[in-house]
């Protein structure tokens, strides 16, 4: 039915300028561990757990909101092979957040590792450990818990000032002002205004208002959250875990258990996908409790159902956008008001909500008045947390719907409306200065923005013709096109910090140690490329070791599209400084000035050409031969961005809509992106492709559904299907030439932005197909049919 071979791009994907300029960077280097992973060599946390580890199981709440009256573990403890049953009484009474974020965290400390209250179905009640998984499971079922069942708040529209208060407990607090008002069920709030929005809207000859409701979405990384722990020879607690942020994990565990951080080591092995879902502590505290109590190794891998019910989702949001414009399409005012649902706890509550504005509003920097505000509320649903797109996807869904409505009202090509209003290279937006992630932002001039090029190429690839955006290909079958543009960021300026250490080894190769966390994105490879390029050596000469709080230098972790830009810049700085040290040492050895040394990759030469020394020979000299001159040559450098240069993209979609069944299929999805220099173009493309597919899933069918009592109905991959390879047509991703002066070799980021456009672009295509603005996500066949019927009835 679907044609997988169309369309053929009008011209071939041209080679990037950067590929010609660099030797290793901007080349399609393959990952070194691909073969091992295909062969299934033990690599992920649960593959590596010690055989004698106790199996940990969690007793979880069957109620959406309840107070625990008593816990009776006697039947469980009587079972042979059971090591311990731990409850809230075994935890220090310290409020924490499970969100892996900077210090102090912008998330409220509103959670205890285990608490007397449970606030969603699946919330942790007790920890059971036993010699086998089967015994642990059995024991968990024997723990007897008496609850006082409380009335839950499930609808986020009803949460604000509801008589039911989800967090009545004393002691919880915000780390700095985030608008935290638990008595009103508010986890965070924010408001900002540039100019006078109401006045500007009133004066605008053309106005539109659109409200969209985006749903919670599940990450569904194929590897479930897993961790194991043990006490090492020095009596320290070691935790091996599928985490995106080893240092935040260590810090949060130290706080939760009131332990000095020097007593904890966190190691991240390979991870089977993260997407933000592993930017929190979900499993680590429980294995740690068991190991500290029993002295024995402990392991826990969540079941898929637990991942669905009891880790985090994307924040559900209601986004209302009002635009005011002149008849020629020039925007005068943008107002974005958001209500966000953080679920039972406030992890990432403020920041995802602010990003809905901060990483979308600058796109249209011509408006003179801009306002953003709203609340993040608690409900008795599973907590929301970080998820690729991180608020930007929700905000953009509202903004790009409103932009298309404005185009319709003005009878303008939606592409031209955007071109007229969008950000260009050399410009700025006040929003950058005002809105940060939980704090004030950082002013920034845009030094690289190739949106014009992205749009031009995207139009070509999809064959955009504003006068023919819909056609009937068979009776009742419509093909229609739509589009959207997007931006994201590259790390959090002045907050995210990454470091790298490079050490010169005998044999003339280099050890690269980074705190950065490869989630499968290929960052170990990308960071090695950056080092190899600067040091003038081959990829094989760089050996990477990452993500171990004992053995690699600090890094905040992999989130906020930070790794290439922030950690990559740290690697580049370290490589530069190491190169200078090598040259200095060789100069001294050869008895010339450093300026007289030319370093050409693997060989040093004097400028007069009389002397030369190979990197290989020198490595033995400096470590074995040179007497009192012998030394280890190494460099450690750190990087914090003083800006967060956004990547951009233009997306165009062609859908097929069956007016009989309401089914919407994506036939073609075209993305042209400006990510700066792609350090590894093929990996950048796959990142974007993968993001697009997750975005299509969100637009069309992924949905977290609950019963009226607050039980999750979509808790398996059967009831929460993710896109299969038969579910979409063609995804085409191209990258345009762009160079970000502040990034390593011109790079920005590529990890998140791909996910942002499908929800608005598909909505815009449906609007072009049938004249109806769908606002309730996802666009299931039932919803589409209902909207068609409702429109007919009018």
């Amino acid at each position, binding site marked *: 039915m679907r044609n997988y071979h169309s369309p053929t791009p009008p011209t071939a994907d041209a080679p990037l300028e950067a590929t010609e300029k660099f030797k290793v960077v901007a080349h399609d280097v393959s990952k070194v561990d691909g073969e091992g992973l295909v062969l299934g*060599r033990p690599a992920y946390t649960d593959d590596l757990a010690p055989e004698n580890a106790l199996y940990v199981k969690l007793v979880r709440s069957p109620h959406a909101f309840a107070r625990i009256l008593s816990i009776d573990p006697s039947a469980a403890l009587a079972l042979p092979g059971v090591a311990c049953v731990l409850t809230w009484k075994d935890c220090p009474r310290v409020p924490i957040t499970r969100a892996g974020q900077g210090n102090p965290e912008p998330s409220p400390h509103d959670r205890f590792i285990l608490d007397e209250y449970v606030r969603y179905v699946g919330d942790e009640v007790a920890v059971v450990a036993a010699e086998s998984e089967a015994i642990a499971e059995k024991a968990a079922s024997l723990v007897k818990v008496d609850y006082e069942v409380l009335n839950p708040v499930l609808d986020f529209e009803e949460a604000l000032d509801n008589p039911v208060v989800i967090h009545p407990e004393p002691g919880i607090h915000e780390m700095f002002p985030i608008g935290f008002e638990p008595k009103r069920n508010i986890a965070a709030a924010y408001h900002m205004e540039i100019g006078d929005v109401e006045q500007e809207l009133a004066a605008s000859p053309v106005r539109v208002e659109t409200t969209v409701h985006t749903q919670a979405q599940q990450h569904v990384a194929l*590897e479930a959250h897993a961790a194991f722990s043990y006490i090492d020879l020095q009596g320290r607690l070691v935790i091996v875990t599928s985490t995106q942020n080893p240092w935040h994990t260590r810090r949060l565990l130290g706080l939760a258990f009131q332990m000095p951080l020097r007593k904890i080591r966190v190691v991240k092995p*390979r991870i089977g996908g993260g997407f933000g879902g592993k930017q929190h502590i979900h499993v680590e505290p429980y294995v740690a409790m068991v190991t500290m109590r029993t002295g024995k190794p402990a392991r826990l891998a969540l079941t*898929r159902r637990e991942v669905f019910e009891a880790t985090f989702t994307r924040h559900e949001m209601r986004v209302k956008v009002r635009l005011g414009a002149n008849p020629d399409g020039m925007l005068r005012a943008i107002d974005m008001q958001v209500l966000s649902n953080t679920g039972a706890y406030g992890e990432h509550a403020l920041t995802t909500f602010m990003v809905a504005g901060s990483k979308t509003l600058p796109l249209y920097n011509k408006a003179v008045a801009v306002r953003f505000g709203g609340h993040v509320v608690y409900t008795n649903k599973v907590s929301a947390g970080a998820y690729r797109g991180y608020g930007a996807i929700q905000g953009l869904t509202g903004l790009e719907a409103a932009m298309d409505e404005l185009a319709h009202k003005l009878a303008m090509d939606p592409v031209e409306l955007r071109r007229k209003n969008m950000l260009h290279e050399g410009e700025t937006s006040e929003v950058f200065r005002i809105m940060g992630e939980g704090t004030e932002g950082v002013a920034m001039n845009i030094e690289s923005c190739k949106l014009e090029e992205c749009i031009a190429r995207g139009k070509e690839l999809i064959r955009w013709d504003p006068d023919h955006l819909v056609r009937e290909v068979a009776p009742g079958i419509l093909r229609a096109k739509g589009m959207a543009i997007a931006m994201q960021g590259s790390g959090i300026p002045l907050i995210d910090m990454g470091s790298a250490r490079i050490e010169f080894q005998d044999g003339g190769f280099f050890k690269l140690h980074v705190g950065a966390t490869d989630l499968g994105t290929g960052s170990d490879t990308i960071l090695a490329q950056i080092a190899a390029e600067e040091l003038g050596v081959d990829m094989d000469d760089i050996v990477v070791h990452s993500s171990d709080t004992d053995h690699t230098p600090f890094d905040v972790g992999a989130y906020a599209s930070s790794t290439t830009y922030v950690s990559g810049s740290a690697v580049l700085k370290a490589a530069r400084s190491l190169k200078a040290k090598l040259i200095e040492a060789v100069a001294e050895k050869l008895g010339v000035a450093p300026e007289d040394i030319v370093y050409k990759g693997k060989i040093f030469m004097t400028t007069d050409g009389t002397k030369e020394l190979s990197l290989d020979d020198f490595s033995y000299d400096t470590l074995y031969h040179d007497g009192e001159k012998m030394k280890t040559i190494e460099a450690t450098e750190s990087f914090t961005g003083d800006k967060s240069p956004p990547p951009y993209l233009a997306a165009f979609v062609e859908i097929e809509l069956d007016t009989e069944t309401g089914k919407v299929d994506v036939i073609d999805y075209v993305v042209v992106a400006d990510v700066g220099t792609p350090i590894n173009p093929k990996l950048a*493309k*796959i990142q974007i492709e993968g993001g697009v597919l997750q975005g299509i899933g969100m637009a069309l069918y992924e949905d977290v559904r609950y019963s009226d009592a607050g039980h999750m109905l979509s808790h398996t*991959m059967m009831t929460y299907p993710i896109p*299969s*390879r*038969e579910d979409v047509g063609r995804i085409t991703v191209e990258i345009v030439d762009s160079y970000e002066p502040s990034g390593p070799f011109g790079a920005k980021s590529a990890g998140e932005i791909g996910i942002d456009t499908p929800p608005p672009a598909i909505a815009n295509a449906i609007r072009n197909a049938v004249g109806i603005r769908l606002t309730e996500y996802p666009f299931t066949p039932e919803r589409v049919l209902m909207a068609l019927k409702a429109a007919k009835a009018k």
Partner: protein
Amino acid sequence: MTIRLNVNGKQNTIDCQAGEMLTEVLRRAGYLEVKKGCDTGNCGACTVLVDGKPVLSCSYLAARAEGREITTIQGLAEEARAFARFLTAEGADQCGFCAPGFALTVLSMKKELHNPDEAEIRHYLAGNLCRCSGYEGQIRAIKKYLEAEHA
């Protein structure tokens, strides 16, 4: 109870609970290349071959596998390596968690289908989900691999 399983040509005697699925038993016996993604027969990460046919080991009773030939990706290491080269060349090896089950299904498709077109490839592999890659890179890799194998 214990069961006897023939895995990659080797006889194993393994402890097993009544009603236990093959994934658990294999992983416990050290066949860690068999991954667990969903527990409900939806993702394909746990794929193994039983008597040469791909099955989802998370929904296959371990006891049923007694007396049959079980093959994991390690049992087809040579072919898997050849395919892995194409996958990494496309950059389609992201987190890699889906890869062993996915590669095993690709190898089984190669035996079963002659010259499949893209729709047939997608259909055969529809049960092997990947959350990272967007599938496009995997499809490119499969096509190039099949071409090279037929050449």
